């Protein structure tokens, strides 16, 4: 059965690279808005903070699980790459983990600890989200730069750290536009407009830097006919940015009909950027060093995971959709009864 689609040492790593990419993309979108809301926390009033938490409270845990799946797939499907990448990113990973710990427990503590401690846990929520966003952006930059530490690569990674954080703030604001109304929604529109600048900056920086760093990536994008076939990618991205700007100028509209547009457009934009990155780096899982075929686990191990995935992933997507539909509509106070 393993030879169904040809040589299992070829198609299985490819399938798992696809699954891992999908998990990372879903994580970046879903936990992106959770983290973004954390990053926006200092700009909100006390009452608004409660509503912002309420808009993500039932979901954040499941959203974060996509990171566990992504890193799990890297671990199980490409164990050698997992070791190389994570030892190279030792310090930013530790900072991210401490950030995730602070952010995750602050959700619970801020609601359950005595009132006088609440503002401390609000701070922990902000600091944790910020540490996580910055370190993820830093890792992205360093990965694009081939996982080497020089002043130039660290400077670039610092830039992507800021841009990804702005990007998360942006998608967090678009989520708030969907889930809130009145004063907070108006605020979220302003936040989204400012965050958009960071998103554009990040897209331009990464698009310019990756071909410059790697002649191989330059070749993949700027030779004929690739450049023609790939042209829609930047063009559509540009169109989406324009659409976003128009939508944000119309918001908030009286009938609240535009509320889904910024969030949906943000997802499309993030997906396109991700597709561009994936195209650039294929077939490498560690840039310029290790291809996904070299790093893959034994086919019989990948196959046994795939069987489970084929059955379980649709169920996961199904009950995730159920949870989002149970808590659809404007965010209201979170109550246990």
């Amino acid at each position: 059965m393993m030879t169904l689609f040809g040589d299992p040492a070829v198609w299985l790593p490819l399938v798992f690279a696809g699954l891992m990419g999908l998990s990372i993309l879903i994580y970046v979108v879903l936990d992106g808005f959770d983290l973004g809301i954390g990053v926006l926390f200092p700009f909100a009033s006390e009452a608004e903070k409660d509503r912002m938490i309420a808009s993500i409270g039932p979901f954040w845990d499941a959203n974060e699980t996509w990171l566990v799946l992504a890193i799990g797939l890297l671990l199980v499907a490409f164990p050698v790459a997992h070791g190389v990448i994570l030892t190279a990113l030792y310090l930013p990973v530790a900072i991210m983990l401490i950030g995730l710990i602070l952010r995750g427990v602050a959700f619970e503590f801020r609601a359950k600890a005595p009132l006088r401690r609440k503002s401390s846990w609000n701070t922990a929520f902000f600091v944790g989200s910020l540490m996580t966003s910055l370190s993820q952006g830093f890792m992205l930059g360093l990965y694009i730069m081939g996982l080497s530490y020089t002043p130039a690569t660290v400077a670039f990674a610092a830039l992507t750290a800021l841009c990804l954080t702005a990007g998360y703030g942006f998608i967090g604001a678009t989520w708030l536009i969907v889930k809130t109304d009145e004063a907070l929604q108006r605020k979220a529109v302003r936040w989204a407009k400012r965050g958009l600048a960071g998103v554009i900056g990040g897209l331009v920086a990464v698009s310019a830097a990756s071909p410059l760093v790697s002649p191989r990536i330059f070749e993949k994008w700027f030779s004929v006919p690739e450049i023609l076939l790939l042209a829609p990618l930047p063009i559509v991205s540009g169109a989406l940015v324009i659409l976003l700007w128009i939508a944000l100028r119309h918001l908030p509209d009286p009938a609240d009909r535009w509320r889904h547009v910024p969030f949906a457009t943000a997802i499309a934009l993030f997906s396109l950027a991700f597709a561009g990155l994936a195209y650039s780096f294929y077939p490498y899982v560690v840039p310029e060093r290790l291809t996904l075929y070299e790093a893959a686990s034994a086919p019989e191990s990948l196959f046994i995971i795939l069987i489970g995935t084929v059955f379980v992933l649709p169920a996961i997507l199904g009950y995730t959709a159920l949870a989002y539909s149970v808590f659809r509509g404007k965010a209201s106070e979170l109550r246990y009864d």
Partner: protein
Amino acid sequence: MDALILSRIQFGANISFHILFPTITIALGWVLLYFKLRFNATGEERWMAAYRFWVKVFALSFAMGVVSGITMSFQFGTNWPGFMETVGNIAGPLLAYEVLTAFFLEAVFLGIMLFGFSRVPGWLHTLSTFLVAFGTTMSAFWILVLNSWMHTPAGFEMREGVAHATDWLAIVFNPSMPYRLVHMLLASGLTVAFLIAGLSAFRWLIGDRGSEVRLTLRTGVVMAALLIPVQIFAGDLHGLNTLEHQPQKVAAMEGNWETDDNVPLLLFALPDHEARENRFELGIPSGASIILMHDPDGVVPGLNDFLAEDGTVLHPPVAPVFWSFRVMVGTGVLMLLLSWGCAYLLWRRRNEGLPRPLLFALAGMSFSGWVATLAGWYTTEIGRQPWLVHGVLKTADAVAAVPAPMVMTTLVAYLLVYAVLIVAYIGVLLYLARKAVQGGREVPAPPRSGAAQVDVLPAE
């Protein structure tokens, strides 16, 4: 200190911190389902009140477990790349199945379980509670399969230094898995039983004599009294299984250096690793032979059998294994005495509740399950050394070449965060208990003396 010992301390600290919380959520999920089903069946508000109090404890514990668990999935790569490079073909699928069949299930339905009571039909809320409990248990299943496989590997072959799976059933149902899984699930049940009984006793002591507290006190005590004898029996079987597959671990647990018959059961000793003998031994004659071989003349393996020709030590460090084991067994004996005493008195004096000394004892034992669980894990995991995967991969061969100062820095950072969180966690549990006593109202800020802000417990 070198990167190896620092990485070991770091992973040990992380996994010790982590296991505290799954130990609570695994069994508490099923207790919550029990409360919910009783409420569905009787319609009595006290069951729902118990559910609402303990679901908060569950939510907090769950969050602590999730965030500390993520840390470990990254540390396989940051600190122990040799582990996945050597046995990734086996560990990988097991971890993947944990994420796929457990993590998403519990994380998604947790939202509905916590905040969905008035948003979804009653059956869906009950179903969500079940699925969360089921998810935590599935998670325990997969992780214990992997952990057991590291102790008693089976169903694989080595090709060019890398393990390849040959028989998945043999891998999943490896020789120590059933014992370890049962032992851990029961440990979780006992931890939760004593936590429920302890916090309920605490609430009783500070003046909460309502029907909900009576109910949870009784639930906790009865659960503890029922589970502890089963746990002692299961622990004995697990020990015999270890004797068969990892005799050097049992030799360290018993502090027995020479293979011999009529080996005493040591109650106290100071194992000396350098001199390879014990100092200040105090033991019951032939005790270890009776327990392990069920025969006073039974031969018990000794540590000196596990020295290589060149003097390399192939058995674990003795003192930590020896003492962890005694802490675990001692806590278990205390649990047995207290839970049976309380159960007997609750049965005899139906409506009067328990005498104050016993309530204090229960409150003091609230977190005794953590002590026993950690001591048990230290026994088995330190007892596996010097192996990471028994007979396949040594711990020293799996560690990353990360500079020691870097490991030290992150270790200190983790320890600081964990120390703050554990204090906050216990503090919030006590706060929730005090708040419940006052009918759910915000507890007034305690009086301040000077600049110091001290929490004042009404009972003290």
